[in-house]
């Protein structure tokens, strides 16, 4: 009888139970350790394989050199680092106010349906593949930009000669095109975090300002935005990490020029676009230098991501920073 019962209801067998639980938990844990291992491996692989570049040129030497010559086998990272920082920061500067504006408008002014529409629009902006932004940038934005740039260039050559070296070649493809595409791609990240944190501002904070006789905008300025500043900052940082690592959209429109100085209109480069462009023929020290560039990107984006995650976590506790 007893054997029959355990066979028909195996789940009551303590052995089956303990074994099953252990096995399951062990498997889950194993897979999770695998995730952790892979991420550590990514850092290790980039660092280890890039180490030769740091060895040969020195850490400071590699970071600060502007040489990049496969013929003489001399490599330096500075133009790429500079290009990455310039494009990302400019994109962020361009994206910040529209992102904040849409976050505020969607939470404070828009009726519910419009707020939902805007949220969905941000979600879509964030999830469109970056290569599509690149395609659009190349075939729609760049030609349009070229016209604007040329008229600006003509104006400057008549009225402000000194501006010309800053503006650079008005060919459409280049730094400004990359910055604009990046700005579009950064906005949803910055805006949705800002929107979430603005939605968390307690009603009593708004009422405190209203009770003092503040207009709606004054309430936003003195009660809402300051309270939500942690989330807004986290959104900016997250936007920055996206801009820093963005590849295909930038490669297609930036023109890939590693010769300094960069100009506003003219072609430039970034770490990701250098990796994509140089990768084809790269071997030996050149490949190692590219991986070293990847390692730099890994470090920057890792630090910024952790920072943003930390801010978001702090924010969700008490809304303050």
């Amino acid at each position: 009888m007893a054997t029959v019962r355990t066979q028909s209801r195996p789940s009551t067998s303590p052995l089956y139970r303990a074994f099953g639980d252990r096995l399951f938990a062990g498997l889950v844990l194993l897979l999770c350790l695998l995730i952790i291992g892979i991420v550590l491996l990514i850092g290790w692989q980039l660092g280890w394989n890039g180490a030769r570049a740091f060895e040969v040129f020195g850490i400071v030497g590699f970071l600060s050199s502007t040489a990049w010559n496969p013929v003489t086998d001399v490599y330096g990272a500075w133009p790429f680092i500079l290009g990455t920082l310039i494009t990302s920061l400019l994109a962020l500067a361009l994206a910040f106010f529209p992102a904040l504006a849409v976050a505020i408008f969607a939470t404070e002014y828009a009726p519910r349906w419009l707020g939902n529409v805007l949220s969905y629009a941000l979600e879509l902006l964030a999830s469109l593949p970056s290569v599509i932004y690149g395609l659009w940038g190349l075939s729609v934005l760049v030609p349009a930009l070229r016209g604007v740039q040329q008229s600006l260039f003509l104006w400057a050559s008549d009225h402000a000669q000194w501006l010309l070296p800053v503006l650079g070649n008005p060919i459409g493809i280049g730094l400004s095109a990359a910055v604009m595409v990046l700005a579009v791609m950064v906005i949803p990240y910055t805006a949705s975090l800002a929107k979430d944190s603005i939605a968390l501002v307690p009603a009593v904070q708004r009422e405190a300002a209203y009770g003092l006789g503040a207009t709606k905008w004054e309430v936003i300025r003195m009660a809402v935005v300051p309270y939500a500043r942690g989330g807004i900052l986290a959104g900016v940082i997250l936007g920055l990490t996206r801009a820093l690592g963005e590849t295909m959209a930038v490669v297609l429109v930036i023109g890939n020029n590693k010769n300094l100085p960069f100009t506003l209109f003219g072609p430039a480069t970034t770490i990701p676009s250098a990796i994509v462009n140089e990768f084809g023929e790269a071997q030996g020290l050149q490949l190692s230098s590219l991986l070293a560039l990847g390692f730099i990107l890994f470090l920057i984006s890792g630090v910024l991501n952790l920072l943003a995650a930390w801010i978001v976590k702090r924010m969700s506790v008490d809304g303050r920073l």
Partner: protein
Amino acid sequence: MTQISGNLRRRQLWDKVMLGLLVLGSLVVVAPLVLVLSKVFLTGFSALNLAFFTQDFQPVEAGGGGLRHAIVGTILMNLLALLIGGTLGLAGGILLSEYPDHPVNPTLRVISDLLNGLPALLKGLVIYTLVVIPTGSFSGYAGALALGLVMVPIVLRATEGVLKLVPWNVREAGLGLGLPRWRVILSLVLPAASSGVITGLMLGFARAAGEAAPLYFTAGGSQYLNFNLSQQTESLALTIYKYANEPSPLRVEQAWAAALVLTLLVLIASLLARWVARVRP
């Protein structure tokens, strides 16, 4: 009293001006989306034809062919990636939600944040050093691995999120019936959250399907239809990248058609995600 509130008119005006600026800023955000989507739909639709789905690569002089090879490659690599990324992401989500006190959790959370923000390009680059260099060739398997890494954090977050929404009494009820914990998780908790988990998988799939950068270093691209992932493999996103720069307008049109297909995939995934979020009580 009147003199200190004398600036009210100016403040009210300023209030209106700021509202105007906020509306303007919102339009600036929405405009690119409208521009990109309308371009994708208009150009993409007129470029879509039967050949797009039924023919493989052909030289432009021979009519340009279609992108069947890229569609097949995208599907195959993404399905394998879904297997890899889905398994890892599900495991991560289960650990975080079902074993909340597990000592690995804080690390896992940090790692998941890191992986989520890590440029996809780097994921491809590392698979290149780990798989492509040792095996000596680009392959669909390498591509699937890189795409799997793209999916992991997305699936993980979605899974953790929906599992946490399942009320604790579901688990208590199961344990109270004498079910072991793993059965409770697999037969009670996961099914209760299945629509959310599936949405997470779909979002991961859609995101990975749009990635070109990691495949550039791993799958390598191809002009031929093949079902064998040990070969170099093409994907739609990769095709867009390559064709965007081609001088032939035909190639650019094909790129737009591919963009339309990927956009539809993203649209469907995100609409489903919204729908599931709404349906959930």
